[in-house]
């Protein structure tokens, strides 16, 4: 039990030598001294600058494109349109799925997203591109391209898209249910699915209190600092070289190759350092056009760097949604039924995270009767991409506010109500699958034990709110190579870009196995020719899966080192053990050496030692988190000030606690921004009216207090060190916790995100008059 206040607590259950410590990050010096090379820092010989011309309309037919004036301009080396892109085979019934972070799409849609051919489906949809000797000439040349459009009415929200009289965006999209087309009539509803447990009607009949509310959430963007950037060269040998800012080098290599209709082995992608992604940097945007422009320009490299407005208008945000949520409970505090109708905006092409949202909406609760209907709805907005626990924040905003309301109605303390109904090992999730070992109860208890929870909150219009969050995390494939150096250090090569300190958290797992210091491992993120396939950095998977690959590679090294010692000592390898970096005979105390000493003997005992690890693991540990937040609401303006925040999260095992704390704080900030201010403010024509960072209101350091953290460690039995992913779940709880705090401050239940001043005032007027 926590009794004293510490801003950052780690509730450890198992200690290691390296794992769980806080070494300095390997890439720290380069990053703080400005030497790290990011995507825009690539300047190969003969570089041309690319610029994409984008649709001014959210929905329109392309009647005519004339590029002749642009092509004739001095300095312009290539001009392309959708007609220069390879056609994608479209064989009925044969989908070619492309994995994009936690989402996926059909190749034909990705091809159309990269550059439109006949119709534009969102404001900012690429329609042509130019390569020129300077960025200014390229921009001027795009203005010289003449396009005639036949403007069509846009569909901007999921409920609009589901209406019977809605304009149909795609004539080849039909509602699919678990792999089967449900109708021959084209629809904006690309997918419907249902998760059902028990009988909700029976469950609601047994309830003493039933609350049902409708919620709307706005489209929001990941807001990474570094924009998308790529430099692409189509070589004379037909190999395509890409340097870019990406979370998924292999994912973008594969998807770009398929869009370009070339073998994946013809593409070598070099991931540069990355200035944030949060799920939004798994898709190819500029890479295919830059490749084609490079080929048209005789193989000169072409660089495309997006502006902030292009980022907001044209890359993949996370969807707006409409959710109807209903929960019933007895007056004794037992939840009897939970039901949700969830409609998520996919953007211009199918593939919203509604499936993930449906898995999360009721995930913290052990309830016999659940019914969840999910709808993936295409609208005339940019195609959504993954964003930190995609789909979960929308979903749990709705359920966690109703949970709070029911607790109040039956007179129970909200955390006690949650604890009483908390999911545990064996609890069935909405889709019927049972949980393995989880740490939800421990998270709730850590919240209750925290000084913040028990601190008095005085003052007018102030309130404290709490909420839980769930995210299922991912596993997926990773590869790692480790080579031993003669000075007793090791180089580690991996394929997952380092966004949040993963070089170090992965190296620490190898160091733990080898019994050396984390600083003795020299990690690097390699290009796609230099390491085995590795899924990108997303899904809270890298420290889990790439770390596991590093563990296996280190075990491989360890076994080879044992065999070298056996060779030198002329004994069986089985008679030697290695622990904490020391190799010794199990029977002869004279036979003993260290990892570092033995490394110096490699050249004379058989040469290099290289360990390899490749995994596609099961055993993914799901994650729960909770947030306690204090706010003060100005009832005159509707402005919400955040006074105090405490984030609690089950990390399984925090490999590097500082990085886990950073993820918890960063995710909380993004969740608070989503909850209070961030939104795509769309005009009726489907134009984003706030497409700059002056108008798209993200939280700044001055908006927030320091965020306290509590790391709970309930080991994941599916990982050698007990790791659960930690990157995403922390964004989920903040909007609901804020809504619950606002209720306690001013007595109104919020049903719309963001809870900006205008929305708060409107809600006060509607509910209190």
């Amino acid at each position, binding site marked *: 039990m926590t009794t004293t206040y510490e801003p950052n607590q780690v509730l450890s259950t198992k200690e290691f030598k390296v794992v769980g410590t806080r070494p300095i990050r390997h890439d720290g010096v380069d990053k703080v001294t400005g030497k790290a090379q990011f995507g825009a820092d690539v300047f190969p010989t003969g570089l041309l600058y690319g610029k994409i011309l984008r649709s001014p309309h959210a929905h329109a037919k392309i009647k005519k494109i004339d590029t002749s004036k642009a092509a004739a301009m001095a300095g312009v080396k290539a001009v392309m349109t959708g007609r220069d892109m390879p056609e994608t085979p479209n064989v009925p*019934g044969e*989908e070619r*799925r492309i994995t994009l972070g*936690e*989402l*996926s*799409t*059909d190749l034909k849609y990705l091809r159309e997203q990269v550059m439109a051919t006949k119709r534009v489906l969102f404001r900012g949809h690429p329609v042509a591109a130019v390569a020129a000797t300077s960025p200014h000439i390229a921009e001027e040349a795009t203005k010289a391209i003449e396009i005639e459009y036949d403007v069509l009415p846009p569909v901007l929200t999921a409920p609009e898209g589901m209406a019977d009289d809605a304009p149909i965006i795609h004539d080849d999209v039909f509602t*699919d249910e*678990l*792999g*089967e087309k449900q109708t021959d009539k084209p629809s904006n509803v*690309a*997918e419907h*699915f249902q*998760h*059902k447990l028990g009988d909700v009607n029976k469950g609601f009949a047994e309830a003493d209190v039933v609350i049902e509310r409708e919620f709307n959430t706005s489209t929001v963007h990941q807001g990474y600092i570094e924009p998308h950037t790529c430099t692409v060269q189509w070589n004379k040998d037909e190999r395509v070289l890409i340097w870019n800012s990406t979370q998924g080098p292999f994912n973008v290599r594969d998807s770009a190759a398929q869009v370009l209709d070339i073998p994946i082995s013809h593409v070598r992608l070099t991931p540069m350092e990355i200035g944030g992604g949060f799920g939004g940097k798994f898709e190819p945007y500029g890479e295919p056009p830059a490749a084609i422009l490079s080929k048209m320009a005789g193989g000169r490299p072409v660089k495309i760097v997006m502006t902030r407005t292009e980022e907001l208008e044209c890359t993949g945000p996370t969807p707006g949604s409409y959710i109807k949520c209903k929960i019933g409970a007895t007056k004794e505090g037992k939840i009897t039924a939970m039901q949700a109708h969830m409609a998520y905006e*996919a953007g211009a*092409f*199918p*593939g*919203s*995270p*509604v*499936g*993930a949202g449906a*898995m999360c909406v009721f995930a913290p609760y052990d309830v016999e009767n659940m019914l969840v209907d*999910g709808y*993936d709805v295409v609208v005339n907005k940019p195609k959504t991409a*993954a964003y930190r626990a*995609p789909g979960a924040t929308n979903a749990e905003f709705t359920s966690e506010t109703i949970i709070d309301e029911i607790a109040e109605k039956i007179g129970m303390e909200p955390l006690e109500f949650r604890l009483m109904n908390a999911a545990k090992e064996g609890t069935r999730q909405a*889709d*019927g*699958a*049972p*949980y*393995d070992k989880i740490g939800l109860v421990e998270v709730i208890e850590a919240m209750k034990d925290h000084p913040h929870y028990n601190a008095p909150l005085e003052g007018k219009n102030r309130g404290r709110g709490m909420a839980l969050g769930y995210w*299922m995390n991912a*596993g*997926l*494939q990773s590869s790692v190579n480790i080579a031993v150096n003669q000075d007793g250090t090791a180089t580690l090569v991996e394929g997952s870009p380092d966004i949040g300190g993963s070089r170090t958290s992965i190296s620490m797992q190898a160091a733990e196995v080898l019994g050396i210091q984390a600083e003795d491992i020299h990690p690097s993120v390699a290009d796609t020719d230099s390491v085995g396939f590795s899924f990108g950095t997303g899904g809270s998977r890298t420290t889990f899966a790439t770390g596991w690959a590093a563990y296996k590679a280190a075990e491989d090294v360890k076994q080879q080192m044992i065999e070298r010692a056996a060779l030198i000592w002329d004994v069986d390898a089985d008679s030697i053990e290695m622990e904490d970096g020391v190799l010794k005979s199990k029977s002869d105390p004279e036979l003993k050496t260290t990892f570092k000493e033995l490394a110096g003997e490699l050249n004379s005992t058989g040469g290099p030692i290289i360990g390899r690890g490749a995994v*596609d*693991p*099961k*055993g*993914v540990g799901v994650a729960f988190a909770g947030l306690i937040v204090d706010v003060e609401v100005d009832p005159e303006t509707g402005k919400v000030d955040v006074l105090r925040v405490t984030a609690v999260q089950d990390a399984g095992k925090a490999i590097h606690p500082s990085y886990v704390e950073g993820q918890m704080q960063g995710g909380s900030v993004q969740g608070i921004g989503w909850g209070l201010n961030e939104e795509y403010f769309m005009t009726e024509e489907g134009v984003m009216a706030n497409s700059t960072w002056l108008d798209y209101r993200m939280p700044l350091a001055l908006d927030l207090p320091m965020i306290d953290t509590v790391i709970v460690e309930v080991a994941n039995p*599916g990982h050698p060190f007990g790791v659960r992913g930690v990157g995403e779940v922390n964004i989920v709880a903040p909007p609901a916790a804020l809504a619950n705090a606002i209720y306690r401050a001013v007595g109104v239940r919020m049903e719309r995100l963001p809870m900006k001043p205008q929305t708060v005032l409107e809600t006060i007027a509607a509910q209190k008059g």
Partner: protein
Amino acid sequence: MREMTDGAETVEVEGSSVRQIINNLDEKFPGVKARLTDNGKMKANISVAVDGQVSPIGVLEKVGEESEVHFFPAIGGG
């Protein structure tokens, strides 16, 4: 899928792999195999979990005598 299993939410079939489970399901409930698989693999937008763990290898996943197998839409969909 309940419309294919006469409304049953759970059914019992034998098999030591997901592939065998699907084949045996198809014998009991014709059409299940076509609904779940394409060219001998799980359809791209359908996932399978064995004993609560989503399988990365789909139809090749081994299944124990008391295992629970769940089919559900792949996360992300679309």
